[in-house]
């Protein structure tokens, strides 16, 4: 794939690396290589397989197929400790330091050999920490407690650890996500210095500007496959976006029949400082599927939590059918006709230790059991109806939630909220981690619900899903609803709005 003069052997090569999680194919044969002294950017939508690729490189996951070659050595059983020995270091978005220990102690813990009876040479430890901090250009005291440091300072400590460990391959996973532009500049200087000292850097970011400022080459992942590696000099912003999303929306999505309805839910200047939701204005109509797109952390789940009373709004108005409401708790939101199918179904959507029927009736206790007296027959019957209607594959209504596959858990979570007969249904990543078959079934169910007059808000990081299902598409970025696009928009427009291409040129 590379042209030009013969290159020295790469620091790291992945050949046809593949990884499945249950039925989900996270990586389907990815080729990737990293040269000494280059910054190689890794780009892709949420769920394209970047994290999985990183975890394979750092030894956290074993690939199901394919080959990892580090410094000419083909490795079959790469473990995190072996990766460390081979000089692979990873710097995560959230630094993993011990907050109550000092900088020198944290560095010492990473670099000094372990041994319970070993004496600690405190002055040597301090001196070494000081040297490393100076090398990465960090103006920090080795004696400072890590909890007193800012996020970028902590990242510098992590980088110092990587340098101290003699890392030849450094993975940086969205390192600038929480940095100001000045902190970002300082980080870039450090990265460039690492590069000139011959370290290979794998740099993951959603911000295209950074990739153009910093990277030498860029590999784009899509649906677990590499769609190409390019020299950054030879590609444009638009070209990259096209690579990221460049596929046809498949025709499997059921067609919309929405023609207009009364406004069911309206938001006026809704703010929630605690969760970063900022001046959101929005109106959703009965029968409409309103897709909510954006990058992870753009504030979509946070907005859903505000609506559902989990983190109540501090300012602005929320109206249901023209009537102002202020849900202060999920219980209150449910009573107002709101339903929220949460993103993390194993923690919030389904109680894994309880059977399906109890999970389904959990949100309708007051209606199904008006005297608080359980009527197990009625419960069972209701559960059986939902199991049939939503085609939940299970041993019966008494099967535990934890015994179901992801897609069937999602159906149970959905059933719980349909049982409340809501006016507004908020779905958060309804098909994340769900196999293909269950995915199209869930899409069909969502479409039917909208047809029956529900107002649906569908949060999704799956761009084809957003494009295929939505009647309108709202795009969020940094807690704000930055654009509302028609349902027939193309992937390029949505991705550009999510990345903030138009509005933020030259702002950083």
């Amino acid at each position, binding site marked *: 794939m590379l042209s030009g003069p013969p290159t020295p052997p790469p620091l790291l090569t992945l050949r046809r690396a593949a990884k499945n999680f249950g039925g989900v194919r996270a990586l389907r044969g990815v080729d990737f290589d990293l040269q000494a002294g280059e910054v190689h950017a890794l780009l892709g939508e949420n769920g394209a397989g970047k994290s999985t690729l990183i975890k394979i490189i750092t030894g956290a996951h074993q690939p199901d197929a394919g080959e990892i070659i580090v410094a000419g050595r083909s490795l079959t059983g790469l473990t995190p400790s072996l990766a460390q020995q081979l000089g692979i270091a990873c710097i995560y978005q959230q630094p993993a330091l011990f907050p109550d220990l000092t900088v020198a102690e944290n560095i010492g813990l990473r670099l000094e050999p372990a041994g319970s009876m070993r004496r600690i040479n405190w002055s040597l430890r301090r001196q070494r920490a000081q040297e490393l901090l100076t090398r990465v250009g960090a103006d920090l005291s080795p004696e400072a407690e890590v909890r007193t440091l800012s996020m970028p300072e902590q990242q510098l400590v992590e980088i110092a650890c990587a340098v101290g460990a003699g890392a030849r391959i450094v993975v940086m996973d969205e390192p600038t996500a929480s940095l100001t532009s000045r902190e970002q500049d300082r980080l870039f200087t450090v990265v460039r210095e690492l590069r000139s000292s011959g370290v290979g850097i794998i740099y993951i970011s959603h911000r295209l500007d950074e990739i153009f400022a910093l990277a030498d080459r860029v590999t784009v992942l899509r649906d677990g496959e590499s769609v190409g590696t390019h020299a950054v000099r030879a590609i444009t912003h638009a070209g990259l976006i096209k690579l990221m999303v460049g596929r046809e929306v498949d025709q499997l999505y059921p067609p919309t029949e929405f023609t207009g309805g009364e406004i069911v839910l309206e938001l006026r200047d809704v703010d929630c400082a605690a969760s970063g939701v900022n001046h959101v204005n929005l109106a959703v109509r009965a029968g409409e599927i309103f897709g909510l797109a954006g990058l992870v952390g753009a504030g979509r789940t946070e907005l859903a939590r505000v609506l559902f009373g989990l983190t109540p709004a501090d300012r602005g108005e929320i109206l249901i059918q023209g009537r102002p409401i202020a849900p202060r708790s*999920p219980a209150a939101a449910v009573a107002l006709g709101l339903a929220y199918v949460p993103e993390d179904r194993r923690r919030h959507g389904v109680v894994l230790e309880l059977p399906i029927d109890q999970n389904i009736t959990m949100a309708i*206790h007051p209606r199904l059991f008006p005297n608080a007296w359980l009527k197990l027959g009625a419960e069972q019957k209701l559960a059986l109806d939902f199991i049939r209607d939503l085609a939940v594959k299970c041993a019966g209504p008494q099967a535990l939630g934890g015994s179901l596959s992801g897609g069937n858990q999602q159906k149970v979570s959905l059933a719980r909220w349909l049982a409340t007969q809501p006016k507004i249904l908020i779905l958060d990543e309804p098909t994340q981690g769900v196999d293909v078959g269950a995915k199209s079934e869930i899409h069909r169910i969502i479409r039917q619900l909208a047809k029956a007059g529900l107002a649906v808000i569908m949060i999704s990081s799956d761009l084809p899903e957003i494009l295929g299902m939505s009647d309108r598409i709202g795009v969020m970025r940094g807690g704000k609803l930055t654009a509302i696009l028609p349902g027939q928009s193309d992937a390029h427009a949505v991705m550009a709005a999510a990345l903030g291409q138009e509005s933020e040129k030259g702002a950083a």
Partner: protein
Amino acid sequence: MIAAKNQPSWLRSLLCYETLLLAVLVIEWLIFYHYGTSTNRRGHLVGFGTLDRQFDILRHSCEIGLLALALTPVILTAGIDLSVGSLLGLCAIVFGKLWHDGGLSIPVAAALTLVVGAMGGGLNAGLITALRLPPLIVTLGTYSLFRGLAEAITQGAVTYTDFPSGFLFLGQERWNGLPMQAWLFLLMTVLVWILVHRTTWGRSFRVIGFSPEGARYAGLPVERRVSIVYILAGIIAALAALIYTARLGQAKADAGTGYELFAITAVVLGGTSIFGGRGSVTGTLLGVAAIAVLKNGLACLPVVIRLNAAEEISGLLTGALLLVALTGNAIPTFLKYLRAHRPAR
């Protein structure tokens, strides 16, 4: 829990934890009946096998039994209440003072005592739900607080006695063949069983125990439900205080000292998971019975009488029984863990 999936359902229900515990209880009882009963020189039956002794066991286990009933919903929500024994002491003193010094009639004093119990539980509930403090710490605090209050009221010296015989009837007489407090205990058992197993409230205790976040996301009123289990525990502790006072005929500040630990042991021995969610009132009842029979039965064994060490040996065996039960319950989970974490080849 112990049964595998592919066994027929009758076998599965037979192999459940409660049945095993019942078997242990029966065996325990038969052993004590066999070795602990004898005939004295006059030809009378003495020891474990006498009806009087059996009623004695019942009488002595009602207060701890009530506390164990109170703790079952608490532990189902993955909470704990260490203060019930101290609250029992405080309520006994409050009752004695209201009747003796306050000049109130017995029914009014008893009713007010139940209110004080509810307030004690309410204090726990408020601290746990409003301030989101861990139940262990909150009730460790009120454990000392309630006992301290009881001692302050009596200045560590006063003991209220001379209760009217109408009240003592509650703790010392039989009614329709059984000791009076056994009827009360039975009534409370039925009520708590209904609450835990037949109402949406009991259902939500389990959900909260398994997953407090999941309960919140499902729109369940988590704070209100958690509050109610602690308030209920307070009321039941007050009821136990009344029975305790009636049984001994006196109210003193050290009433119920250490009872909370026996009660927790009984609940856990009864199969209720200390991590919340799992458990039953039937199990608690069997747990209470197993401990009570063990404690009293040992005191009838000739060898124990010769050693004069009934307390020590019963403590030893209760602890051993609890550890065996916990280990037995944990084995399936442990095997599953081993299977899941088998090193990859």
